């Protein structure tokens, strides 16, 4: 298993350690996971799938909890607007 892999966050390539969660990839990309209903940037809070603040779109699937999803090579991640 390679030590690192590459994913894209909003089109930009990000290198993450293998086994990293998508939430980590988004933070490493310097992006907020989503914008709140009043337009505030939000990032991960609970880290365990409870709070839904880290939800993003992964390979076309919307509202996926990024903290409970492990990165795969080439994964296409889009933060929620």
């Amino acid at each position, binding site marked *: 298993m390679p030590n690192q892999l590459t994913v894209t966050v909003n089109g930009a390539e990000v290198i993450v350690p293998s086994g*990293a969660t998508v939430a980590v990839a988004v933070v490493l990309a310097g992006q907020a996971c989503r914008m709140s209903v009043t337009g505030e940037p939000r990032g991960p809070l609970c880290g365990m799938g409870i709070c839904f603040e880290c939800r993003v779109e992964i390979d076309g699937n919307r509202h996926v909890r990024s903290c409970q999803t492990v990165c795969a090579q080439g994964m296409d991640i889009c933060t929620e607007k």
Partner: protein
Amino acid sequence: MMSREQRQHFDVLVIGGGPAGQAAAVCAAESGVRVGIVDDNPSLGGQIWRAEAGGPQLDQKSNGQPNTPAAKWAQRLRASGAEVLCGLRVVDQPEERVLLAEGSSGFRELEYEKLVLATGARERFLPFPGWTLPNVMGAGGLQAMVKGGLPIRGKRVVVAGTGPLLLAVAAYLRKHGAQIPLICEQASWSSLARFGTALVRWPNKIVQGLQLKRDLAGVQLAANSWVLAAHGQATLESAVVCHAGKVESISCDYLACGFHLIPNVELPSLLGCTISHGRVQVDDFQQTTVPFVYCAGEPTSIGGVEQALIEGQIAGLASAGQETEARTLFAKRKKARDFAKLLDRTFCLRSELRSLPLSETTVCRCEDVPYSRLHQHTSWRAAKLQTRCGMGPCQGRVCGPATQFLFKWNPDSIRPPVFPARVETLAVLATQSATQLDLQHSEVTGGQ
């Protein structure tokens, strides 16, 4: 409709793959019954035994023998023959003794004779100005992120809130290269001193405490201290704390803030188990008020990993009919539960924390409901109906415990699905309830 092949049957089905769930699954499976263990995370371990990204797997051996409790239980679980189902989240019980679970590749029906609920706990979050800024996380939340691959070396992390988790997280982060300028514990020195004295009954906790003390040598731990606000433009830049009566601003990259733990009782509640004071009520054999449904670990009381392992073993043995064996663990459990009571007493929240939110401070993060729109309501239900507080995707898991503390509101009853589910999954539920209605209808009309 779903085909029969997608339905799996278990004598004992365990929900939750942390210490309690693993112990239950091991003990039930070693008794010779067919066991399944379900977890919504990509791998087992729960929060406390969460493995590090790219690190050794839990059951990896060192010198031929597993060398940690987590590794020992993981190895025993593997040998027990229990079927492990990860990445599956239970959303509802569409019919008697059948749970519907959703995963990335669709849904599955899990049929059981006996059910063990080991749903663990989550951190309690309290709102304060700036707590919604990115990089303000739970204490356990940040630890989970670091275990999930977030680089923390050289980062400045203020750790704040209450409970033993703060020290464990601070020690973990420091070991991974973080700088910890301050740990703010809201409990008083006197209650921490009473806690320390009472620990003589639990020598292993003293050993753990001394290890933490060594790991945190040189780190400032302040009691009677709490966070007042987080500041930053798009992301966190500094934390303002009330530190022994003085207000201090500390620049930091992360604020790790959690106020002890809240049992996850949503699924037990959905299944009809009696919940009292936020805890699932169980009998001596860990059986809930619903026959055939057992509960173990944090949902019954916040006692930590030792209690979870003992309760898990009792639930696993009892659910597999090994009641005599289960009885041998009762004395150990009593002692573990006394420790849980000590935790509750020591880390109860001070009333000053109720005045942290300003009128514009967000309380419900899903729906962006500010404090000013909530405080005039008299109940959680009224606030939900009028403001949408608690009606977003977290279903009140974050703002529910917060408003319970802030306004003394009681939580509402739970409705399915217990987690937001995809339309395909909901369609299964709809089809099944329609079938049930048809059946009821034909019974009433005497059939077709």
